[in-house]
């Protein structure tokens, strides 16, 4: 039945539409946006729309909402009328409130941690109550936190493979193949039909970088995302392919979780942490591991972000002599050993870092983890240190939420933050205006550099590898700071 429907739908648009194929580098874990902990958004965007989205310059633009008002801890959002979910249910404030409340309860989405509850004020007005002032609440609603699931699907235990949203496309389970490709076909009840330009959208799950590259070369896919690695460099050099360096960046950093020295006493010594930061040859790292596609990084933000502080550039420029000197001055001149968790895509990065640390007498054992478990294991006391990436367009308040506060997600040893950091983190929340918040965060970045429990290594742009035709397709719009293409208005190549 669903198959026949899909076929009929496909034919209706087939004449002018066609197919667009996108390849995603991470494996799909779940299609439930509220269970989703970061990567894999391209699988969700065709089906789910968020209340807001990012405009071309990063501004918040209403999508399923039409406007908002923030008044202290009260956020009032007006919703778009005449929108329905693809299963026929109406989209209204009640549905939206149910979504937000489920997200709070599941407690996976960081952006909803500041939300107390949500309720429907009237049919198209949603009221959100905050626990604490949150200048980034609307920002959070641009991503998974704002994605709206059909009420009937909220209780479906199989919602992870059976997504129902308001988006321009619906998930076609019968033509999708688990672990291989997700097929999306037009949503016949979509509220903005003009924006449906494809008969079929496919997201291929190709975690192997070489395989994804070969698929792009042979035209099996039109576009895909890449980390800064050898295959991205090959795309950059290939005459018939193009590597798109998109805004937003992946900041790769090492986190000293055990900074009070519970397991590894040396980590309590700031001299040791500084020596580690100085021992990393970021230029060589960028050249060899990231093929020159990244830039050195000494703070959580990248050039062009509003919280970025240019004066911090080079604060831990590679200086082996100085690093050795600091080690000698520290309480651990003989060096020490610690374990570092690894997943395959970070393997070569960590092998390189291990080589650098070895030079100052520190032995870093690489402990392989199953892919998809690094973030989770990093939140446990299993490892005294870890390594992660962070998107530089994320609101700076999350730096504190993740790493600084005593109950921060990646502070498993419950290390007490310094008073300075705590004060700066609070100060950053006092306004909703970026310009007013920026000075506090710049100071916070400097303080972080000084305490050196976060060792920033490189910043790489979000990278898309696309075919020549895709590069010349004017309807291909990359979502601001995100590794996905905006599907509203996307038409096929040619």
């Amino acid at each position, binding site marked *: 039945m669903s198959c026949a429907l899909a076929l009929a739908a496909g034919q209706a648009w087939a004449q002018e539409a066609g197919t667009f194929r996108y390849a995603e580098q991470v494996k799909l874990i779940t299609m439930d946006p509220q269970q989703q902990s970061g990567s894999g958004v391209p699988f969700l965007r065709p089906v789910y729309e968020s209340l807001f989205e990012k405009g071309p310059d990063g501004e918040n633009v209403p999508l399923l909402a039409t406007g908002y008002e923030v008044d202290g801890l009260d956020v009032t959002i007006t919703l778009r009328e005449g929108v329905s979910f693809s299963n026929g249910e109406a989209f209204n404030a009640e549905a939206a409130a149910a979504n937000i409340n489920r997200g709070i309860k599941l407690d996976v989405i960081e952006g909803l941690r500041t939300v107390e509850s949500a309720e429907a004020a009237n049919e198209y007005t949603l009221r959100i109550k905050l626990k604490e002032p949150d200048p980034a609440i609307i920002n959070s609603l641009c991503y998974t936190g704002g994605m709206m699931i059909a009420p009937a699907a909220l209780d479906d235990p199989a919602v992870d493979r059976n997504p129902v949203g308001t988006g321009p496309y619906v998930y076609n389970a019968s033509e999708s193949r688990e672990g291989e490709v997700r097929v999306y076909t037009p949503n016949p009840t979509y509220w903005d039909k003009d924006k449906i330009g494809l008969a079929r959208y496919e997201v291929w799950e190709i975690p192997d*970088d*070489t395989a994804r*590259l070969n698929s792009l070369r042979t035209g099996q896919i039109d576009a895909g995302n890449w980390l800064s690695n*050898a*295959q991205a*460099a*090959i795309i950059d050099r290939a005459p018939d392919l193009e590597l798109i360096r998109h805004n937003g960046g992946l900041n790769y950093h090492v986190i000293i979780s055990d900074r009070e020295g519970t397991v590894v006493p040396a980590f309590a010594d700031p001299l040791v942490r500084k020596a580690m930061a100085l021992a990393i*040859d970021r230029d*060589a*790292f960028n*050249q*060899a*591991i990231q093929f020159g596609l990244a830039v050195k990084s000494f703070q959580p933000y990248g050039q062009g972000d509003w919280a970025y502080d240019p004066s911090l550039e080079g604060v831990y420029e590679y200086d082996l002599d100085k690093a050795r000197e600091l080690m000698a001055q520290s309480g651990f001149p003989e060096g020490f050993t610690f374990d570092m968790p690894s997943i*395959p895509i970070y*393997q*070569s990065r960590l*092998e*390189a870092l*291990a*080589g650098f640390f070895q030079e100052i007498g520190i032995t870093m054992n*690489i402990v*392989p983890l199953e892919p998809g478990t690094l973030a989770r294991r990093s939140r446990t006391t299993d490892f005294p240190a870890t390594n992660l990436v962070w998107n530089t367009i994320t609101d700076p308040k999350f730096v504190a939420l993740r790493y600084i506060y005593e109950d921060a997600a990646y502070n498993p040893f419950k290390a007490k933050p310094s008073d300075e950091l705590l004060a700066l983190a609070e100060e950053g929340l006092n306004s909703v205006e970026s310009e007013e918040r920026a000075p506090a965060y710049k100071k916070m970045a400097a303080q972080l550099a000084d305490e050196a429990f976060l060792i920033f290594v490189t910043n790489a742009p979000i990278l898309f590898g696309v075919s020549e035709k895709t590069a010349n397709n004017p309807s291909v719009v990359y979502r601001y700071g995100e590794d996905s293409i905006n599907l509203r208005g996307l038409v096929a190549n040619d």
Partner: protein
Amino acid sequence: MNPSSASHIRPVPRRFRWRLNATSVITVTTVSVLVLLALLAIFADWLAPYNPLQQNLIKALQGPSAQHWLGTDDLGRDVLSRLIYGCRIAIIAAAEATAIAIILGVPLGLFIGYKGGWWDWVVMRMVEAIVSIPGIMVAIVIIALLGPGLHRAMIALGILFSTSFLRLARGVVLAEREEVYVRSARVVGAPDSRILLRHILPNIAPPLIVQVTLTVGAVLLAEAGLSFIGLGVQPPNASWGTMLNTAAAYMDLNWFLAIPPGLAIIVTVLSVNLLGDVIRDSIGRGIAVGPRSETATASTDTDVPAAGAAANPLPPREDEVLRVEGLRVVVGEGAGVPVITDLSFGISRGETMGLVGESGSGKTMTGLAILGLMSAGLRTTQGSIVLNGKDLRTLSRRQIEQVRGNEVAMVFQDPTTSLNPAFTVGSQIAEVLRTRQGLSQKQAWARVVELIDRVGIPRPEERARAYPHELSGGMAQRIAIARALSCNPSLLIADEPTTALDVTVQQEILDLFRDLQDEFGMAILFVTHDLAVAADICDRISVMYAGEMVETAEVGALFASPRHPYTRGLLSAMPHASDRNPPLPTIRGNVPRPGSWPTGCRFSNRCDFRIAACEARVPLTGTDRLVRCIRADELQLERAS
């Protein structure tokens, strides 16, 4: 003594030596490779030019150079050094998994083999279950339990391969348990465990060694595969499999990365496998391949065609179907070693000539030589084989295929092996009729039934649809005869056609030959070692010894007065009853092998009448009856007196 004795002839010395050389070359090469591997593994710390984990990011992914002979990998680590350290992992992996497999498999196999019953049943069902899952999947499931890593993966492989050791040990126990000495040991009162150890372990050693080589090769490949998919050795440690894993990611930038570890795996596995083959062959063959034959006589013999035969060809017989003249068959390249020399005889239409002699005398090969069907390595070098006026030696392959079946056919010793087990007997006769005589399927089948009926098989329709293994020996031989006669040949070569049959059946078959000869009128060359049979069916008999004819005579004359000492020996050795087995007791020794024939009279070393003159070649003499003995007349008189 059997028709395939030709193929039992030992390979010629020269080839034989080459083979030995090839084997030793393989052994030396593979052992050197494996020793080198072991040395590299042991002395990796000294031999490797760099630390295998020492990275140099600036020099990543470089091709071979003076500093880095095999280039560098993605982190600028020296590929050669990693390869050398990879030897260590390979050896550890192979040793670990094989040891685990043996330690798990052999005792358990011995145990269940000895205990039998319930234990055996349960364990074997489990083994069957494991074996029915693809090996790599078994390893993957075990790794799911243990987690990835070199040692854990090797435990997984050890468990997997233990099943083959278990089955091997169990098989040996089951076989040995029945052996007499185990039983006798038990009677003496040795405890069970000691019986196992003392008697069974030595017998298990040879197959165990072979199984170890098989396992080592398989482990190396499996380890590489598991490491390649990330479930075996974990980076940054260098194993050949993980190096290939890295190489796979950088194929586009530096394909050379895949070459050194790939070749290392191939060369190692190849060496292990080849060494295993050598061990298997030598164990299977019982080490020694057979005594070296003396080559000295080979050359001295080529010459001296016994003056009599070559110079005075035998006068043609009346209505001759076949005439063989001065035939010489050799084995091997070049001049070769003679197997049959100076053979001449003729057979007339309707006549049955017997070719008699011990095993190895060359009688069977004579039959095969006429058909041009000698085993590889054997060939005729001199003489002619004229059948119905055509010299078969001059014919092309196609032409001789035309002659076979149509003009000359053959019946072999063992009817159960000379009929193809895969087809019904009727279809095998019909095939000849269809391909040789162009009959239709239907016509051929009708003729088949007719023929089967003719050779005296009841219910021919039904029997035609039987497979050879469903027929008794005598019945199968009748079928073989029917097939041979299907195209009405003028010469039938019967090679010991009754030897494999029961005595009662023998007579029936001989009667059948006689009847058929009366009806079809073909000439028969009847090869047999059994003088009683020959006396029964033959008109004339030729006695062969060591590749040459020593005496020919009408059957009555031969039996009445044998003139060659060998013939005489044969006759006096004729069994009185139907006992086929005992050797000829009055002739000491055996027929000498080709290549080690005495230079003069070939029978001289077994002959009681040998004199000095026997050292020279002896011609075949006489007119009516021929004999190859210089003392024939003398002995004749002596005997008469």
